[in-house]
């Protein structure tokens, strides 16, 4: 089979992806530079108004909150995910089953998982009703519709993304390195900080990015678990394309999200390329 026959096979798929995947992104960039039409959609013309609008303190606040919550969620996933990955990597014959438990949430609809959180956190939910029937509290705690609920939802939703890459790098870790460190007199804590963690770092960075990226663009979690005060970038974008009817502004916010995502990815790819070469 020569490579010319390969071309013909790729054409329909590539054309589809270009038309329905690539062109729309260009349109969003174009829309972000146009003027809004009061009925939704855009008016012809060139303006940077939509981007200027993002600098409004209200929207800067939303961007800052999105970054902050996403970073805390990422840190949370790494802090919880690392020990989990560590135990899985050292669990011998249990390993397959524990890995299945990590992968299972990937197969579970994100909407259903978010609803499951509502079911636990709401005023008459399982946590509040259990605490009340045990007499620990008299009135239900305000768990739902808080930034804490959004944070819990993000960590719960994206934790498996952090575990898998960390597990992959811990699993590859050469045990003789740890034995050598031990024989040379390194204490367990020193072995962890000076050998295990540095060698697991590529997995930690990859896992962190895999949490950070979807967290930055999250919509369902803040929409269903957060209140009016936890609007994130995803809610802002959704709102502009539905009830807000300011498409150029929504497009500008999307471009911001897209650029942020790709900067993070390119940084990561460059970084892991450089490491691969030095290794």
């Amino acid at each position, binding site marked *: *089979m*020569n*490579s010319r*026959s*390969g*071309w*013909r*096979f*790729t054409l*329909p*798929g*590539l054309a*589809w*992806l270009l038309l*329905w*995947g690539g*062109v*729309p*992104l260009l*349109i*969003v960039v174009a829309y972000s530079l146009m003027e809004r039409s009061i009925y*939704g959609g855009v008016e012809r013309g060139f303006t940077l108004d939509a981007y200027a609008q993002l600098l409004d303190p209200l929207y800067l606040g939303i961007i800052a909150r999105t970054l902050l919550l996403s970073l805390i969620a990422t840190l949370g996933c790494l802090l919880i995910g690392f*020990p989990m990955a560590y*135990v899985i990597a*050292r669990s011998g014959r249990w390993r397959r089953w*524990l890995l299945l*438990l*990590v992968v299972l*949430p990937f*197969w*579970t*609809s*994100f*909407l*259903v*998982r978010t*609803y*499951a959180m*509502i*079911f*636990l956190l709401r005023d*008459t939910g*399982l946590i509040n*009703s259990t605490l009340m029937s045990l007499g620990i509290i008299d009135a239900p705690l305000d768990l739902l519709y808080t930034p804490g609920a959004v944070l819990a939802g993000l960590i*719960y939703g994206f934790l498996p993304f952090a575990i898998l890459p960390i597990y992959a790098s811990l699993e590859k870790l050469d045990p003789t390195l740890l034995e050598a460190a031990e024989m040379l007199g390194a204490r367990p804590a020193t072995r962890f900080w000076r050998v295990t963690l540095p060698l697991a770092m590529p997995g930690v960075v990859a896992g962190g990015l895999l949490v950070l*990226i979807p967290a*930055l*663009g999250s*919509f*369902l979690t803040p929409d*269903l678990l957060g209140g009016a005060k936890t609007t994130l970038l*995803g809610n802002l*974008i*959704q709102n502009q*394309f539905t009830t807000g009817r300011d498409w150029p502004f929504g*497009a500008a916010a*999307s471009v911001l*999200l*897209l650029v942020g*995502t790709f900067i993070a990815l390119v940084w990561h790819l460059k970084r892991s390329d450089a490491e691969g070469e030095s290794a």
Partner: protein
Amino acid sequence: MTRRLPWPLVGGVTIAFVLLHLPVLVLVAFSFNASRYSLAWSGFTLDWYRVLGERPAILQGLRASLVIGLVATLIATLLGTLLAIGLYRLGTGKLRRNLEAALYFPVVTPEIVAGISILALFALLRVPLGTTTVIIAHVTFCLPFVTIVVLARAAGMDRSLEEAAMLLGAPPAQVFWRVTVPQLLPGIVAGALLAFTLSFDDFMITFFTAGPGSTTLPLVVYGMVRKAVEPTINAISTIILIVTMVAVAGSEWVRRER
């Protein structure tokens, strides 16, 4: 390392594993709880599943999800498989590697941006939103996954079989249907099942591209969740979980066979 893990670590990680799965387990358990308002367990019932059948919106949602899922899977599998075969035949040059890398572009695009951007294109083309637009959008995000799965299968394929068939004088079409496709079949089936799962589960992209008649099950659930929490939502959620799990388990099973 055969060294025993310290028990506080094992204990903490066990709790983390339980917390990771508890919410969904509770959700499923309470789809069988007889009491509507109280969270106290008051006996096993299938009432909430029976109620689902009496609600036209839910049945229509299920129907829309199945139709959209099946059609989108069919198109995505066809185009995705051809793309994988094409990439495989391009060999290992720079072009192939760049095209393969480009496949991950839609995979990493934030879902909400993918949703609003295809909505913007539909608006520009003045295409009315409905089943067709949802199918087009679903094919677009499913296609790269099919290609990635089939390509993984192709990597383990014995190329000499295709060459042998050609040397023996088989026309290209016959080589394709009698040699290439049968070898790739497990990858194609696994890719199709994965595509169906992604389509059946999708909320975000459907949210922006749906119109009259294309309110899929996740959209129905979203609407219900925003209104009130009721045991019927637990029942639909359980059904969505089962459909997804069966499709993914099937996909894994097919991929590991042979």
